[in-house]
């Protein structure tokens, strides 16, 4: 029993870490640009597929570095080509646009890499369990959590200490004033979009190493990411972090006792949050409403 609980708890933390990576990227873009990127899950898939194509040439480690950067570049290209044209319009258009974009990207993956699942090879040193007793905790899982911790800390340091990061935070609160102070808001939004896409790409590489690749792999992660944002509170990245971990662990613990409710429980949490504290755990009143 203890092993079962431990197994599900570690699972929950890992799944939660994924939600966090996805949701932080989404959250960044929502906060600054008011765009809910429906195609974010497809960015994740593409990050994974880039890694699949790159691994034979640069190895897993090289792919882990390069493919999130490629995903970020692709994100900026898409932002410049399509998404920036709807910034000035009612924000429902961005939702519509990225929904259509998700269709396009998913079928592009299916066309380029085929519809059947593909494995992403990981180094042997990562695929062994840490101890025979805890056979379900491979070094890869430890490694994933470590990467997520580094990435999240890096993101928060970036937002706190760099000039661009400070401007992004300021823009979240009051974009008009930031623009009036002479900041290039269009550039800032692109930069921000790049960071968000980078996180999606990184999550994609990590996920591909764990569960393999398929064209609609992002679909399962996009909804929990939305929930993580709603539970944590729109406008607060710390809230998103908390929300992602909370729903990941809650879903995993539910699996122990009532497996068929494991997907539904995160929605129940969301409903409770909306009933008792509509702005989310750490959200600010009035964001996006």
């Amino acid at each position, binding site marked *: 029993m203890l092993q079962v609980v431990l197994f599900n708890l570690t699972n929950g933390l890992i799944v939660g870490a994924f939600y966090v990576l996805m949701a932080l990227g989404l959250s960044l873009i*929502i906060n600054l640009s*008011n765009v*809910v990127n429906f195609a974010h899950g497809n960015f994740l898939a593409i990050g994974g597929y880039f890694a699949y194509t790159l691994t034979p040439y640069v190895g897993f480690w090289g792919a882990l570095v390069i493919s999130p950067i490629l995903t970020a570049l692709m994100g900026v290209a898409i932002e410049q080509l*399509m998404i920036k*044209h*709807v910034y000035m*319009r009612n*924000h*429902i*258009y*961005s*939702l*519509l*646009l990225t*929904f*259509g*974009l*998700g*269709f*396009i990207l*998913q*079928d*592009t993956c*299916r*066309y380029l890499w085929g*519809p059947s699942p593909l494995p992403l090879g990981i180094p042997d040193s990562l695929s062994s369990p840490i101890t025979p007793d805890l056979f379900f905790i491979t070094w890869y899982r430890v490694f994933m959590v470590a990467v997520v911790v580094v990435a999240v800390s890096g993101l928060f340091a970036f937002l706190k200490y760099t000039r661009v990061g400070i401007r992004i935070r300021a823009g979240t609160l009051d974009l008009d004033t930031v623009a009036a102070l002479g900041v290039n808001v269009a550039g800032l939004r692109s930069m921000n979009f790049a960071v968000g896409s980078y996180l999606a790409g990184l999550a994609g590489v990590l996920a591909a190493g764990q569960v393999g690749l398929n064209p609609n792999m992002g679909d399962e992660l996009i*909804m929990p990411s*939305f*929930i993580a*944002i*709603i539970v944590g509170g*729109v406008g607060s990245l710390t809230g998103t972090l908390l929300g992602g971990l909370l729903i990941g662990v809650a879903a995993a613990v539910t699996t122990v006792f009532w497996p*068929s*409710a494991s*997907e*539904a429980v995160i*929605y*129940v949490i*969301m*409903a409770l949050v*909306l*009933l008792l504290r*509509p702005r989310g755990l750490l959200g600010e009143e009035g*964001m*996006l*409403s």
Partner: protein
Amino acid sequence: MTTSLFARYRTTAVVWILLLTAPFWLTMLGGYTALAGRVVVFALAAMSFNMLLGFTGIMSFGHAAFFGLGAYGCGLFLKYVMASTLLAILAGVLLGGILGTLFGLLLVRRRGVYFAMVTIAFGQVCFYVAYKWDDFTGGYDGLRGFARAPIWLGSWKLDLAGNANAFYYFVLALFAIATALQAFILRSPFGRSLLAIRENERRARFLGIPVERHIWLSFSISCYFTALAGALYALLNNFTDPLSLNYIMSGNIVMITVMGGMRAFWGPLAGAVLFVMLQDYISSMTVNWMFFVGLAFVLVVLFFPRGLMGILQKRSGA
């Protein structure tokens, strides 16, 4: 003003002539009557959704929930309770409508993207319930084992089960009643105040319009009609599955509405024609039909945000 009134009736007349004669010209063009049924059902779902999006200015991305609840309500009633088509439709409408009304209470204070995200999440809850509750809903494989029953009016039998045309006209009759009600609601003072909320919520509030209550009512009404469309969809296929509740279905309803034109009453009908055609023809030619549907949708959003009807109206107006 008189010309626009004339134009409105002209559109309505053209729409009804085409719909009423669909079984005749569709088979001549190589289609089949069930295709027309699908267009009408999707059009009803999208027009109901458009009361909210186009006429109240509120974006729900979870309308598949109410569509699917209508379908499941109807199917489950036929399977477990009794073989009465009309009562089954009523059961579907009530299931989707009442849950929508209750859920609406949770969301009236949310706006914009937040509203959309919360409605998506509600849709996914319904999706997972239908997906996991194998014994009752059939789970992933969908709900089977029910069929539309003939309706007896005295001794006269309306053969919904065997006669495709009879079923099409039955659906069309319900569509007519529903859209007439929608038009009536949208033209009433209540409907006008919804437009006021869409155009400027703050000003509407200053004028004393109870904005929250109106949005809630608009959402609820929209849910009842969408559930009706869902119930008819279940009858159309004699089948329903969890995908009818999924957010992709919500997205389809949104795409139909936006491609057709969300500011025009008949816009979603035009969108439904386009969508069903695209899906039917492109999926017969290539497996990558999602690419083309997505591309068409992206182009509409970027360049023709008023959709097909917007293009037509601009032409006739200029």
